[in-house]
Each structure stands twice: as C-alpha cells, then as structure tokens.
C-alpha cells in the first residue's frame, strides 16, 4: 500500500473537515436564520458541488487560482509559488467541493432548535454570538458531528477535483483514489484491491458512526 498517499489523503480530509467546521458554521447560521428573500440564491450556490461534475468544478477552480487570475497572481506574489498543483490548492478545492456536505447538516440541525429557546436566551441578556455557543451549538451537536464527518468522508474519496487541481504529485497531491487509479492503470490489481478495501472500510465505518448517532442508538445508555 502507498502509505504516503494514505497520509496525504487523511491530512487533506482532516484539514478540510476542520476548516469547514469553522467556515461552514456562519454560512449555515445565516442560511437558517436570515429572513432575506433572495436567500435561495446563496442556498443554490452552496448546493452546487452536489450536482456539478467534479471536473467542471475543478476546471473553474483551476482557472480561478491560476497565474492568469488576480487571485492566483496575488497568492504567488505573497507566498512565492503558484497555487495549482500544490497541497494548499488541493485543500482549497476540497473545501469548496465538500461545502454542502458540511453546511447542509449544520443548517438542518440549527433549524431543529426550538426558536423559543433562542428567544429566551436573548431576553436573558445573552448576545446572539454567545447564544450560539451556549445554546444552539450544544443542541445541534449531532448535526455538527454529522457535517464534519460527512465532509471528511467525502474528501477521502474525491477524485475528479484532485486530478484537475492537484494533479498527481507524490507526497503532495497524490491521494488514495488517484493511487488506486494508477495501480489499475499499471495492472497491479492486488495493490489496488488493498487500498480500495481500506477506503471502503474507513468510509463504511464513518457512515456507520453518522447513522448510528442520528438514530440515537446510544440513547439507551444511562446519561451519566
């Protein structure tokens, strides 16, 4: 097995989930509680990666961060090297690609919180931000974990976006799914099978965790 690719993949997935946990929360909060009438426009943009072919998304990201775009030029001026075909570029693409997998469970969990509790918190003098951390987040914990875990699992298996934005650089952007593809191209089916099985096991385990949590199978356990 290609342990370097596995390490790169897990690092990418963990960082993506962590960033989405930070970036996704305000987006989900806004999507849940805003009364703006054009909100659906933003909702549709956030959901786009669900339906867009990864190659299309990857193509636009590549163009957006490439040396001919202002963003790409700004990045290479500041950091000293261009963003495409680096781990950082891949991370950015993964974050955008997995955005709906984090934001949608977050928003669904926030919408489940009884609004009267939020109002009660406000009338007790607690600011909107503190109400979020003291009341809304604890009440939405299952949704927050679901979103983080799903974005982690989704990033583990991404292929098209990685190929478009990251390429296939050992130790930098070669992820497990690319490695499997390479092994198959090289007719090394045994190597591909091992890595595929690992990915299958991890993905299944992660989903077991998510579904079990949302069904509250542990609710029979005593609370203390």
């Amino acid at each position, binding site marked *: 097995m290609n342990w370097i690719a596995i390490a790169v993949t897990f690092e990418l997935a963990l960082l993506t989930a962590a960033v989405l946990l930070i970036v996704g929360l305000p987006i989900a909060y806004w999507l849940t509680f805003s009364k703006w009438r054009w909100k659906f426009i933003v909702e549709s943009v956030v959901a786009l990666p669900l339906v867009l072919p990864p190659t299309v998304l990857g193509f636009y990201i590549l163009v957006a961060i490439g040396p001919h775009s202002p963003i790409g030029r700004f990045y290479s001026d500041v950091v000293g090297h261009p963003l495409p075909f680096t781990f950082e570029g891949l991370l950015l693409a993964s974050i955008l690609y997995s955005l709906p997998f984090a934001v949608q469970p977050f928003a669904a969990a926030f919408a489940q919180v009884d609004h009267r*509790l939020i109002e009660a918190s406000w*009338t007790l003098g607690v*600011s909107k931000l503190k109400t979020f951390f003291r009341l809304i987040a*604890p009440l939405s914990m299952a949704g927050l974990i679901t979103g983080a875990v799903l974005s982690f699992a989704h990033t583990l298996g991404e292929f098209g976006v990685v190929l478009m934005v990251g390429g296939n650089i050992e130790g930098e952007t070669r992820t497990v799914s690319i490695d499997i593809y390479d092994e198959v191209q090289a007719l090394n089916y045994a190597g591909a099978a091992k890595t595929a099985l690992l990915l299958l096991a991890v993905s299944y385990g992660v989903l077991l965790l998510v579904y079990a949590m949302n069904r509250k199978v542990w609710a029979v356990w005593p609370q203390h």
Partner: protein
Amino acid sequence: MAATLTIDCRKTFPGRFTAAAQLVLPLDPPRVLILFGPSGSGKTTLLRCLAGLEWPDEGRIQFGSTTWIDAAANVRLSPQARRIGYMPQDYALFPTHTVAGNIAYGLSDLPPAARQERIRELIALLQLQGLEQAKPTQLSGGQQQRVALARAIARRPQLLLLDEPLSALDAPTRVKLCGELRVLLTQQAIPAIVVTHDWAEALTLGDIIAVMNAGQVLQVGSPQEVFSRPANAEVAKIVGIETVVQGHVVANDNGLATVSVNGMRLKGLGADVSGSAVYVCIRAEDVLLEQAGSGITSARNHLSGHVTEVVPQGVLVTVTVDCGFPLRAVITRGAREELGLEIGSVVTAAIKAGAVHLVPRSV
C-alpha cells in the same frame, strides 16, 4: 414626572386585523398589568413587542427615559438591552442545562461567588431545593414553572413579562401557584405585565386590567371596575362575570366559606381562600330572582333588595338588584313580567354557594 411605560403601537397582520395598543403603566410603585382577552386577541403579540422579539409597524414604546422602539426614528432596542424577565407560555427551559444552569444562564456577568449566592437565593425563594442538578424534563409542570420564574427574575429585571404563566398546569396546581405568584410579584416589587385569558387569574394577580379583543385594547381599569362596569357589551361578553365585589372571609368550614360583603353574609366556595380579602364573583345567569318571602330552596344565599336597573337585551333582561351591593341577574322577559319587576320592586335573589366564586385579592 413619574416614570411610566408608554405603549403606543400598531402592527398589521395581513388578512387578519391590525393590532393597536395604547397603554400607560406607571412604574412606581410597581404594578401588575393584566392583558386579558380571548386567544387571538393580540395579547401575546403585544408582550413579544415589549420583549423585543417582534417589531410593530408603527408607533413607539418608551420605558421610563429609554426608548425601546420608535418606528419613525428607526430605533429598535434589542431584547438583550432591555433588562427584562420574559417567561413564554411553555417556559422554554433549556433542555441542555440543569435547573441551576437554567437559573444562572443570564448571570454570566456576575462573579462566580455572587452568582452562586443568587442561585441559592432563588432556589430557596421558589422552593426548588434538591432539584439543582435535575434536567427540565425530569420536573413536574409546577416545578418547571417555578424554574422559569426563577430564571426570569434572576437578573433583577426592570420589567417582568409573563405569557399565560399558569395555563400549562392542571387545575389544582394552577390555583396553588397563582396564589404563590401573587405573593412573589408583591415581594419582588418588579413592574409586571401578565397575559391571561382566565378571569380568576386576572383578578388575583392584577392591579390594572387591560381587556383586549381582535387586537384592540377595549378597556383599562382596576379589576373590579372592568369586571363590574364593563365599558361596553363587547367587554362584558369577554369578561363574562357581571358581579365582582370586594369581601372578607369571616369563616371557612371545609371549603364552604362565609364572606361578608358590605355587612351582608354570603356563602361561597373557595378552594384556597387563605387570606381574608377576596373578590366575590357571581355570573348573572347563576342568580335566581324570586318574589320576596317565598319558599325555601336549596340555594345557600337569599338576599333581598330592590331593583335599581332593568335593561332588556333581546329575549333576556339584565336586572340589577341592590342588596347591600349591586348584584346583576339575567332572566327572561316572561319571568320579568310574571314577577312584575320594575325599578324599586322588592325581590329576593337566590344564589347557590357553588355559584359564588371567591378569588383571593391583595389588600
């Protein structure tokens, strides 16, 4: 100028009605204002506007020298900045917090020692000892109500807003907690606005009653004024109690109380008439009029007096009899003719003890 809470605002509900409220509540000494009316009359909306959870389309709310809402000047004070104690109808206790955690929720500005001290005070005040670490789901309805009250008064708010504070409770608990709530409101000396549709609660808790219907404030006055002298037929219909007079309990024999009203003795039922001052409440349809000096009936109260007013309303006639206090009775036109009732006629009013409702009042 004494500090007041001045409300003058309008809010339109498309397809329903435009709610409009103009009220002035003196804040010193603190009073309890009751918003009284049937469901859908706009009481809760008005309370939520006061809490800063809803915004009127027009008008202003002024609390003392602070403007809470001024639609014209685009002033909107957030709920956090109003220093209020708000208790919604179903209490909205935080399920993730313990009883102590709920009470302490708004106290994070206090240093830890002062916060613990305040929690202890409130636990003792509302008799929640032993429940500090319980979660809201483990509490009875009455206990939940007490926790919600403790949480609402914990920050020593400058105004208490209680939305149907007792309606989620069963009848015996409600009567008990209603008395406790009245004591608490008097003790705490915080101006309060209480929404209710229950006339006994309104009489027990209120210093001032505002009768609302379809978004309009129909009458504002003392409980006795509003109940005994409704401004118009609509108010009379909403309050539904035609005779409300003050009395004193002189004896209580297993729940059958003897009350003195202007020297007249009446027997009535009061489940929890602990104090001696009560409101005596009698519905006009529960009063039977008979010719003076006729036979014995099962009714415990026979009061003779003379007719002071006769008001025909369709097939019914409302007759006011002065029997030491003005007592209203509603009878049919036929009955009136048979009895030959005119102003000045002498009659006996018979009322069953069960129809004489006794509601405790603050002196």
